[in-house]
């Protein structure tokens, strides 16, 4: 075995991120010492990124089933039935670490990777979303990172001709050294043309298609699972560079081949490239693979087996074809100017029942690994965890009132986290394909299912400061807010993808955040019939021992049977009534008001518990609101979330350039600042031209609804004492982001 000049030393094992116990397990599985290629394969397969070894135990507790779920977690992406023989295929995935090191390419290849996950399964991508989290705005790196990430997302998505229709962007100091870039893609497929990864057919050809393999991001998957220190920042590993034009060709070539009956199984080469794709296909199919690495299309000279197996070169796929279809498939890929190579064949499992991955290079057998123990039986840890201590609920009277209510509103709407994200989404092509019905900036994006009157609603949500204060409630809230945002467009929420971003799971308090968030997500998924169909876990998001705020991003997808019924957040029309659905108690603990106006950071127990999420109430109020939208009674709808009632009203006013006169409904137990900025859950604002009938229906359904005011004029007015012009609000709201980004570099 020519590639093992040296014995495997403890140092080499440690460099590969394997613990002593894990290496002992390697020796047991192999029955001998592995060579360097084999060790490299173990290392990536058992990295947190590929094996989910710390999270698996808890992910299994998430509900994944519903009558409309075609395929839950475990494949490249989740699949739901949207009727008429059509399916929506979607997933969210993180590219946090690469984006911090090289923001443009890191974000771009994140977008490219998630689109491949979706089209691998037979779907044409129809929309992208991105949930971004950066450090505090005055951190010297933040502006540079925002620039690079936004350009990278736009660069890749725009070149592919897929609209970027929504997402989130927040700033918090916990992300100073560890930003989050979570990319989501939604695709559309026929239910009878869905492709999976399980290989089958002994002797069938294993085919490599797409770009050539270079020495890109070797060990990226291992890097993504290790904490940053100052030293790794200097090491600057080679990051992958994406080529969206090649990916566009790969998409078209794959869809063209998928229209025939040539493909048995297909898997994209993402993290840990050839290794994880080949192992997953073989493992899912219970077969082995003989692979000839000399046949792998190579971009560079003298590549070793180790490098080829671990390379993360982009825009590549692996598939198993029916014998006899090779020439037809080759013609398609060559027509699209892509590489096509038969690099191996499927083999029988051995007497013990496991398939083997046998690699040949330069005429020698250079690796022989049993697949099942390595892939399916990879380590699973029950890491010690401690629950997050419960916090007391903050009473409204314990939170200082602002000197001026409308000045506080202006500060919140014109701050880093309350301001418009137009600067970001205008850089993305959000209208390409001509099916974007609701653009970015509302509760959820709505994208028409091409050629039908159906549409998909989609959004991404999480409130990390809630999850930090109470992981269970925060997990619930993230799912509930996603469900509300879809509901507010009139859509029926169907399923979610979860992107779990946390710190170091070897610290019990971080593991406790993860466990709590899973519990909360599961509660909400069950209560709202809103299962998890795909997801991704990103751990070790910390720098020098400081973790990020726990950020389980929820990407939700819902269905509108008739897109003409959808409503936006802008007020429905001059003279219409404004109705608030749900009860306002004035919950200010962990609120945006507490952060932005009082100046707290949400990290200490006296910042209070996050708002309670009553899931039965969520369901009741949401079902009522959706019915009002579908019947045409509600002319606009906005869910009330961060910033509370007044921020939601202002957003509706700004979206429609219309003012409103609102009755002051505060009272003794709910002072006006708590009424205006409290973040009680399960609430919506709707406008209607017939409030009496709506209130009557609400009463019959047992839904708490209040007539709060009227759409009129150019000012937003509360009671008799508080008023501000919508234009003034819009000015601060729209200007924060462009002003921030055009500021000269701080260093």
């Amino acid at each position, binding site marked *: 075995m020519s590639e093992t000049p040296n014995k495997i030393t403890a140092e080499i094992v440690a460099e590969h991120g394997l613990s002593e116990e894990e290496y002992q397990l390697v020796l047991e599985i192999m029955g001998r010492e592995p060579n360097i290629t084999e060790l490299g394969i173990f290392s990536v397969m058992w990295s947190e990124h590929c094996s989910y070894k710390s999270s698996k135990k808890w992910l299994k507790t998430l509900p994944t089933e519903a009558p409309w779920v075609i395929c839950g977690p475990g494949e490249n992406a989740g699949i739901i039935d949207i009727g008429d023989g059509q399916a929506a295929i979607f997933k969210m995935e993180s590219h946090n670490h690469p984006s911090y090191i090289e923001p443009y390419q890191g974000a771009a290849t994140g977008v490219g990777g998630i689109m491949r996950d979706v089209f691998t399964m037979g779907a044409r991508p129809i929309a992208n979303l991105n949930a971004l989290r950066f450090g505090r705005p005055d951190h010297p790196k933040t502006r540079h990172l925002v620039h690079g990430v936004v350009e990278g997302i736009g660069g890749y998505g725009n070149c592919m001709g897929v609209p970027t229709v929504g997402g989130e962007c927040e700033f918090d100091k916990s992300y100073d050294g560890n930003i989050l870039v979570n990319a989501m893609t939604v695709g559309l497929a026929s239910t009878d043309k869905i492709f999976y990864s399980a290989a089958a057919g002994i002797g069938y050809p294993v085919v490599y298609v797409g770009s050539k393999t270079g020495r890109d991001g070797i060990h990226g998957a291992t890097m993504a699972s290790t904490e940053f220190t100052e030293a790794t920042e200097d090491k600057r590993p080679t990051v992958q*560079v994406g*080529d969206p034009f090649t990916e566009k060709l790969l998409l078209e070539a794959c869809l063209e081949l998928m229209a025939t009956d040539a493909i048995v199984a297909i898997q994209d080469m993402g993290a840990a490239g050839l290794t994880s794709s080949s192992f997953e296909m073989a493992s899912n199919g219970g077969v082995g693979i003989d692979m000839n690495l000399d046949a792998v299309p190579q971009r560079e000279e003298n590549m070793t087996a180790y490098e080829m197996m671990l390379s993360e070169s982009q825009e590549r796929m692996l598939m198993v074809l029916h014998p006899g279809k090779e020439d037809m498939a080759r013609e398609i890929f060559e027509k699209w100017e892509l590489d096509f190579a038969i690099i191996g064949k499927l083999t029988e499992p051995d007497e013990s029942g496991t398939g083997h991955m046998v690699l040949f290079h330069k005429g020698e057998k250079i690796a022989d690994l049993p697949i099942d123990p390595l892939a399916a039986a990879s380590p699973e840890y029950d890491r010690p965890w401690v629950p997050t201590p419960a916090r007391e609920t903050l009473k409204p009277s314990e939170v200082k009132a602002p000197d001026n209510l409308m000045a506080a509103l202006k500060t919140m709407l014109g701050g880093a986290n309350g301001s418009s994200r137009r600067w970001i989404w205008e850089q993305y092509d959000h209208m390409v394909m001509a099916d974007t019905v609701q653009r970015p900036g509302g509760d959820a994006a709505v994208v028409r299912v091409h050629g039908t009157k159906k549409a998909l609603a989609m959004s991404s949500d999480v409130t990390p400061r809630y999850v930090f204060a109470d992981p269970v409630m925060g997990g619930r809230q993230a799912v509930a807010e996603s469900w509300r945002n879809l509901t507010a467009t009139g859509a029926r929420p169907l399923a979610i993808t979860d992107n779990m971003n946390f710190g170091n799971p070897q610290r019990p308090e971080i593991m406790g955040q993860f466990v709590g968030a899973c519990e909360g997500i599961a509660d909400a998924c069950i209560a709202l019939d809103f299962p998890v169909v795909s997801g991704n876990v990103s751990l070790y998001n910390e720098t020098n021992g400081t973790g990020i705020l726990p950020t389980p991003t929820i990407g939700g997808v819902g269905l509108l049977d008739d897109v003409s019924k959808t409503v936006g957040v802008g007020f429905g029309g001059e003279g219409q009534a404004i109705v608030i659905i749900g009860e306002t108690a004035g919950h200010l603990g962990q609120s945006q008001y507490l952060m932005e106006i009082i100046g707290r950071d949400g990290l200490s127990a006296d910042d209070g518990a996050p708002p309670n999420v009553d899931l039965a109430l969520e369901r009741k109020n949401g079902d009522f609101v959706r019915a009002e939208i579908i019947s045409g009674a509600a002319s606009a709808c906005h869910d009330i979330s961060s910033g509370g009632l007044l921020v939601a009203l202002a957003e509706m006013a700004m979206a429609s350039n219309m003012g409103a006169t609102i009755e002051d409904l505060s009272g003794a137990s709910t002072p006006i600042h708590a009424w205006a900025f409290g973040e009680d859950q399960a609430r919506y604002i709707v406008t209607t031209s017939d409030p009496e009938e709506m209130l009557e229906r609400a009463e019959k359904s047992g839904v708490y609804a209040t007539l709060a005011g009227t759409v009129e004029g150019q000012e937003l007015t509360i009671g008799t004492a508080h008023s501000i012009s919508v234009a003034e609000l819009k000015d601060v709201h729209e200007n924060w982001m462009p002003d921030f980004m055009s500021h000269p570099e701080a260093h």
Partner: protein
Amino acid sequence: MKATVHVTLKNGVLDPQGKAIEHTLSGLEFKGINEVRQGKFIELDINETDPAKAREQIDAMCRGLLANTVIENYEIEIIE
């Protein structure tokens, strides 16, 4: 003082632009091209007259803006 900077992609980094050039050249029937890799050539005229100091200044410019040192190398040449 005049100086030039060559910025090139590090070895092994994918070069989509180079690939496009190579592909187009082949399409124009230029034969026998194995690989094309492209980069940037920058000319600077600066006030500094001391070559060592000039190099130091330009090096800082390269690290700060002219090159993306994560994926690119640069080479500075001082021309008197």
